[in-house]
């Protein structure tokens, strides 16, 4: 048994620990979430589920518009369809990060071992969130293509996107900011789940439900009652969806992007402060390695 080869660890050499941790988070997230050991589960999760969700929203639109006698209106369909497709980003990422605590703490028993490395938890969560964003991007692209084909061919609802008019820089920037906002939102859910146990499954579901309602996914936030519309207007997800719609339509997207940037920055301050506080609380309460409390 040779043990003489051990040497003191060269901590901090090369890439900074933060970047390394983000990279490892992305790599691990991709490995865990893609779950290549079972391609059927992966495809169901990545493709079938989001497509089903988007088609459901589209069908509700078709049925609703027919029942109300207003006929099919392409501009309204565009609003609803794009909202539903791009809402996949916050929905997938917040759920993924909210479940992450339970997975690492109870299923893989690795949370405490990750926590006691010099790498901070926050870059690790960011990395895991980015892996989730990669998966969400595939879901968005597939849902956008297949959904538009189905609704165009079978319901005479073509998606009015002129590929020449699309403001690609604005679209890419909006998506990047939307991903950042979704990760920050996920960090808040992660933080809550780090010091609680009974919410680990329901919190993500409640949050995505509320976000769906308040973020202007299928109807503008202006249609909400006053206090709710105010909350909706403060959410980065609202401005993310608006900016994406405007960029795809070739309209002026920069006002929405400015709101998106500001609300994302505000969310960054809140989520990082929240994570910082919760880490202390978790150490005080001893919840970092506690398996369950029912």
């Amino acid at each position, binding site marked *: 048994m040779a043990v003489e080869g051990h040497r003191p*660890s*060269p901590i901090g050499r090369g890439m900074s620990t933060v970047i390394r941790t983000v990279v490892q988070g992305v790599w691990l997230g991709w490995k865990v979430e893609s779950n290549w050991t079972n391609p059927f589960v992966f495809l169901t999760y990545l493709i079938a589920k989001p497509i089903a969700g988007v088609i459901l929203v589209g069908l509700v639109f078709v049925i609703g518009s027919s029942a109300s006698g207003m006929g099919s209106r392409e501009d309204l369909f565009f609003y609803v369809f794009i909202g539903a497709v791009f809402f996949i980003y916050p929905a997938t990422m917040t759920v993924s990060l909210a479940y992450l605590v339970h997975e690492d703490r109870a299923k*893989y028993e690795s949370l405490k071992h990750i926590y006691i490395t010099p790498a901070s938890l926050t870059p690790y969560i960011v990395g895991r969130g980015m892996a989730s964003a990669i998966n969400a991007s595939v879901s968005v692209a597939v849902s956008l293509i297949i959904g538009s084909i189905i609704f165009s061919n079978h319901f005479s609802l073509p998606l009015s996107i002129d590929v020449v008019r699309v403001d690609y820089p604005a679209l890419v920037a909006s998506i990047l900011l939307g991903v950042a906002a979704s990760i920050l939102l996920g960090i808040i859910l992660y933080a809550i789940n780090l010091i609680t146990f009974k919410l680990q499954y329901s919190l993500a579901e409640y949050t995505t439900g509320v976000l769906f309602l308040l973020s202007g996914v299928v109807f503008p936030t202006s249609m909400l009652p006053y206090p709710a519309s105010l909350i909706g207007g403060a959410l980065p997800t609202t401005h993310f969806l608006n900016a994406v719609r405007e960029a795809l339509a070739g309209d002026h997207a920069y006002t929405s992007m400015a709101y998106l940037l500001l609300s994302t920055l505000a969310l960054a301050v809140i989520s990082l402060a929240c994570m910082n506080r919760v880490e202390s609380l978790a150490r005080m309460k001893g919840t970092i390695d506690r398996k369950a409390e029912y």
Partner: protein
Amino acid sequence: MYAVETIDLSRVFELKGRRILALDGINIRIGKGEILGLLGANGAGKTTLVKILSTLLLPTSGSAYIHGHDVVRDAKYVRGIINLVSGGETPGYGMLTVRENLWLFSQLYGLSSGIARERIEMLIRDMGLEQYRDVRMHRLSTGYRQRLNLARGFINDPKVLFLDEPTLGLDVINAKHMRRYIRDWVDADGEERTILLTTHYLAEAEEVCDKIAIIYRGRIVAYETPLALKASLSDGVSIQVELLSNRTTKGSIVEEISSRDGVLACMLVPSQNVVEQGDHGGNARYDGSIDGLTRLRIMLDDDSKIPDLVSMLVMNGYRVLSVRRDQPTLEDVYMRYVGSMGNEES
């Protein structure tokens, strides 16, 4: 500077309105290059102490230092020089291979790629995981998963390693391998490496530890080298008694003996010998008895008490098969300091 130092370290848990004192003014100093064994029953406070020292838990009061760095204020630095292995756990990601799991942690510890690869290969070899290098963790047996867990603990070549009941649930061969590796690892660089080992197993502590601390209800009740601890019992006499009886309640004989004058401690012996006899045809139970045979380990303050004790046993309907005087063992030390109450807790 000590590798580990705690000063009046206390921890209180609030549970449904009740205050539970898990640690009560712990003072320990572990020198560099030492292996300290922390012995105690379940709930004595061993794991709580390890959690505080490994920055997972905050103390309620007092302070703790690793290589002179406060575990509360300087947690980031401390995390770079420690690692933790908990027995009975198999942390890691099932869909990652053995090598990938170690790679993940090597990167979280900030090792350069070259050193990480070299160290991973060395640990895979040292832990006998060569043929499982590229096997996903979920395909490994429990024993190999625990070897992987131990390898993860050494990945950053920590200055202080916390081993929390590392042989829990391991078979005899894996446990022996682990104990030998631990000892060799410290001996290979005794100036830099320190281990705090918590265990239920007295033999394990005696085999690998330089010093032993006995923790009871959150307090350190003994803290010395194994030899010094045993020498501290020179005022007492340790005997092992074999009895034959049809009585079913073993607890009562322990209580009867413990309450007698001159008896320092008494406990049933759940010894390996009993298990071995069981293997040869006896109906062995892990309570110190085989088909009515009971073994007791008794500490007396004076050997003149032995005849009286034997008389009492005979009068109470026991057939005394043998009385053997033993050299003090760590078990005696543990009995002396913790007594039968601690035995019941475990």
